[in-house]
């Protein structure tokens, strides 16, 4: 096995035992990137200091010497940050995002910034102003998005782990399409400070890794209240690895909403059912249940997200930084127009307020379900990766793709996507969601699942 193929947990052991150095790890990743980046278009910007940082790394720290990739909407000092938007091309951040600052102080080495849908507006990475990223499992297909670059970087072993961010599906959907583990924490569990805002009320930074254990490791570093983010939670941060392992023996009550099954494409249903049977075999109780049909979340999510986007992008007015507003791409313009409309006088009640009311109903519905179940099965996507070009003339592509991620996202719940098999050589993802701040429960069940399956260990032929 090559060093760049290692998981973070494996690399930590190797570094500790002096089997290899951090420079060797970084070097292996850089080699992989130099071989395949031109084909898959994963990285927008490389950190030319990575090897020097590796040389000085302190491996006694939690992420000491570990090379990771970061989605390009996280501000990073010394590395241009664009959110894959031409308007911000060449933008040099004046400060560091909290998430990357925490990773850096834990010793991580950011090797580069990954491609994404421009401004995180999409679920394909095809709307990037710098060209689409291709799926490492099938270069004719999309990696998903908006954290498509981070998912592809992990899948193609260009790094040991990556940071993504999810508004509704942006971690879980590309994780599913690229066969990596993607973890979306509870809203407010990870700080949004220094993340170029998409929809402020749902944006959640999270790990994209090769294993559940690695996600737990990364979450332990990035989670926690941030004095610079008023929506970050004071809930104490756990040692997620330890909690995950302790809870592995516990038997959980797991619900499976029949409405979610309805949305799945027929070809992936058997894989999801097999995963459910696996959970039962592990001793968990899985029962069918009913939730508000996810199709109602599409409208709610679209209105809230467009409204917030129209306001969040107002600062890019061409006065202080970036290019002027004509540099906004088609998708951003569409979203600004729609969001401006849904917030307008006379329409606000009809759209924004109504959407907030339905959001409350969805939250209440989850609360009801979680009074019966510890966890709920939530496959992240209806089907496997689509062909390049699938988003053409599909202004609602993302919202339809993310139908299964939207309910839990607008409720601020934590959720995971983990590999559960392949159809026609394309990866399929399985998923779980939990009540807010019940990250350890998801991690425990998912970890046990990976202990007895090997889907997550399979590698694409690049």
């Amino acid at each position, binding site marked *: 096995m090559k060093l760049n193929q290692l998981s973070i947990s494996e690399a930590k052991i190797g570094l500790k035992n002096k089997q290899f150095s951090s420079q060797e790890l970084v070097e292996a990743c850089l080699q992989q990137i130099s071989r395949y980046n031109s084909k898959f278009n994963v990285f927008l910007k490389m950190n030319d200091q990575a090897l020097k940082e590796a040389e000085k790394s302190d491996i006694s720290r939690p992420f000491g010497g570990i090379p990771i990739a970061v989605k390009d909407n996280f501000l990073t000092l010394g590395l241009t940050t664009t959110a894959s938007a031409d308007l911000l091309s060449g933008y040099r951040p004046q400060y560091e995002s909290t998430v990357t600052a925490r990773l850096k102080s834990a010793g991580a080495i950011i090797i580069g910034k990954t491609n994404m849908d421009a401004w995180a507006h999409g679920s394909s990475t095809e709307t990037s102003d710098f060209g689409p990223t291709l799926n490492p499992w099938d270069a004719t297909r999309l990696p998903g998005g908006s954290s498509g670059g981070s998912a592809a970087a992990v899948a193609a072993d260009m790094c040991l782990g990556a940071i993504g961010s999810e508004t509704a599906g942006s971690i879980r959907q590309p994780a599913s399409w690229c066969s990596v583990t993607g973890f979306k924490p509870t809203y407010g569990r990870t700080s949004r400070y220094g993340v170029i805002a998409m929809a*402020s009320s749902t944006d959640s930074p999270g790990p994209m890794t090769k294993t559940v254990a690695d996600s737990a490791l990364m979450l332990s570093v990035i989670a926690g209240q941030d004095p610079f983010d008023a929506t970050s939670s004071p809930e104490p941060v756990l040692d997620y690895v330890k909690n995950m392992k302790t809870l592995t023996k516990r038997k959980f009550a797991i619900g499976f909403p029949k409405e979610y099954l309805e949305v799945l494409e027929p070809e992936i249903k058997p894989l999801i059912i097999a995963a459910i049977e696996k959970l039962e075999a592990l001793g968990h109780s899985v029962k069918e249940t009913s939730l508000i049909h996810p199709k109602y979340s599409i409208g709610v999510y679209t209105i809230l997200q467009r409204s917030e986007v129209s306001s969040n992008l107002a600062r890019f007015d061409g006065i202080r930084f970036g290019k002027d507003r004509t540099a906004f791409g088609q998708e951003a313009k569409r979203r600004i127009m729609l969001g401006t409309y849904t917030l307008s006088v006379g329409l606000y009640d009809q759209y924004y307020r109504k959407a907030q009311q339905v959001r409350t109903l969805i939250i209440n519905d989850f609360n009801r379900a979680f009074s019966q179940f510890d966890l709920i099965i939530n496959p992240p996507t209806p089907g496997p990766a689509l062909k390049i070009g699938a988003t053409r003339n599909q202004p609602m592509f993302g919202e339809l793709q993310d139908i299964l991620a939207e309910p839990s996202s607008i409720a601020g719940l934590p959720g995971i996507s983990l590999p559960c098999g392949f159809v026609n050589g394309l990866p399929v993802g399985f998923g779980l969601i939990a009540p807010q701040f019940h990250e350890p429960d998801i991690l425990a069940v998912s970890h046990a699942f990976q202990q007895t399956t090997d889907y997550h260990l399979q590698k694409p032929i690049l």
Partner: protein
Amino acid sequence: MITYEPVIGFEIHVELKTLSKMFCGCPADHFGKPPNSQTCPVCLGLPGALPVPNAKAIDWCLKLGLALGCQVNLHSKFDRKNYFYPDLPKGYQISQYDQPFCHSGHLALLSGKNIRITRVHMEEDTAKMQHTEINGEKLSLIDFNRSGVPLVEVVTEPDFSSSDEAVEFLKEIQVIVRDLDISTADMEKGSMRLEANISMRPQGQTKLPEYKVEIKNVNSFRFIKKSMDFEQSRQTQLLNSGVSPVQETRGFNESKGETVSQRRKEQAHDYRYFPEPDIPPFVFSPHYIESIRRTLPKLSSVNRQELSDTYGLSTANAYIICSDHKMYTYFIHLASTMPDKTKYISDFIINKRYGEKFPETPEKLLALINESQNSFQIDPKILSEKVSNILSQYPQAVSDYQSGKIQARSYLIGQVKKSLGNVETAQISMIIKELYG
């Protein structure tokens, strides 16, 4: 001909003197600082920056609301007010829309008329534009030091029916803000800013007129009164000639003493308000509100009442003494030592212009007063007669004095002193005032 009366309402912005800005740690005191020396990602509106509310500023906003007899919304939140202007780096101002911290207050004028206060809410100040020419090139510069400074906005109902009422109210708001010690409320430095909404309606009509004119950017009580008076006559003239004044924003040209049209308001601006998703909503317990209420100091208005009731001071003297808390405590100390001489003491403090040159302690002043009293053995009644006799010889100077010439007053005092010797100036001055107005 129809007689018109003005309908006036106010929006008053007060910059709080908290140490830090509303949503970041930058210093809030921006006056006279080098441009853009007090900024950070938050108040510059850089990508990814998030607002974190200043708890002290919110407490102070609640304080002002409570001092103005408002009710507090126990459930409150911030909202985004979206509009484009170069001094607004985020493209929206964080303000409060439908759940302001405080609402439904009132403040009584001396006449007993109650002015209703619609709301007292919290928002952030904008940056400052400077239009200038550098090397022959016309430039608009932006100074972000003011961006994000805490602003409290007090909005009144259109309850004023004269510019005098309005100015009395505005001055009282300034006094209250200073009593609470939450702002310098300095108009010249822009830490208290006024916006008048004024229109005219036929006397006796209760319905509001269909238009209103907003007067903006006036930074003194004198000019705000002048601008209102100018508007009254301008609008009345228009109405009398059958023209309805246009709904617009006007500024005030100080040298001409006229208001000038700045911006037509075709219709209400659509600010696309929505709840600020970056700041969780607030829930205040009644207990918390009471704890804020307990920190309210005794207001000047209460002190004034006390000075009139207990010490028999004139409204004018009570007002002056209470305008400065140190002067007030100074007076109270002296007055309680010499309860029979309160009028004399108040005149003394006011005429001698209470200030830094005053003796540090009231005791020292007492000695001073006693000393000056030695030179003052004449009964006020006798003095009054004598002054009257003396000054009857100077009819021209008296008439000059009555027409407002300040030099005439000094001349008259001089004449009295010449004939009566070392009599306390303040006393003579007062008697002259009593005799000749």
